[in-house]
């Protein structure tokens, strides 16, 4: 059951990523906003990856859990964006 809820949240992440792509396709200004948001999120992602020990102690989770979460987030964004771009 734990795997089911993790999978559901992963799918939710993928769909959210596709939704952001859809918003970006509405208007050039929306595209810029989403591009800025993506760049900021990527910066935060990199920082979290570099400062994994500090962030894990801040969030009170293990380092391996944090790394798994970061990888899952990256995969969800890549899959969602890929599905939107290829459709």
């Amino acid at each position, binding site marked *: 059951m734990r795997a089911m809820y993790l999978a559901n*949240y992963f*799918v939710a992440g993928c769909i959210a990523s596709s939704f952001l792509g859809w918003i970006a396709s509405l208007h050039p200004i929306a595209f810029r906003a989403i591009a800025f948001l993506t760049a900021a999120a990527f910066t935060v992602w990199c920082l979290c990856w570099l400062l994994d020990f500090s962030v894990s102690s801040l969030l009170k989770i293990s380092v391996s859990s944090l790394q798994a979460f970061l990888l899952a987030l990256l995969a969800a964004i890549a899959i969602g964006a890929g599905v939107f771009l290829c459709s």
Partner: protein
Amino acid sequence: MQLKMFVLSGAAVALWLVPLTALDKRIGWHKSMQGLTLCAAIACAVTAGNIAREQAEQNEIEEIKTRAITADVVDEIATSAYISQQQRQQEAEQILNPREHLERSLALSYSENEESEPITQKQLAEPVAEPEQNAESERAERALQLKAKGWGKAKIILEVWGVTKGGSPKYKAAEAEYKRLIEEGGE
């Protein structure tokens, strides 16, 4: 609940993939439909995830309960085995050496009360006439020893009578006897 979760998961995936692949992005209302279905898909996926998380937490609680019950049963079995072993040991001691017990109990009663009559060889040679009294005096001796060591009442009752603390009639009887023996020993 599980069926609902599976339906919501399936609906989320369908609402995500089908409109994106089937509808044309260049047509206005198609694009709007895509946005709506994506929103609905996110809602379905999050709801399904929440249901699955609740189920997982309930399963975890059930597992903890099962583990606690198992540990309790194992503990009870171990305690009863320990107590029965002690009882067997006491019975075996009583059967094997009744004369020594009599001597010890008589010696105790004599030392506590100097006015009582001295023990004669004839008395010592007699077999155990009252095993119940004998066992009681042994319990008293043991309880006093343990009390002198600083043991608590419940622990002494468990050690000497083999009864765990609670509201059972056995425990109440043992407690009453313990109080009586301690009072007698204190006099």
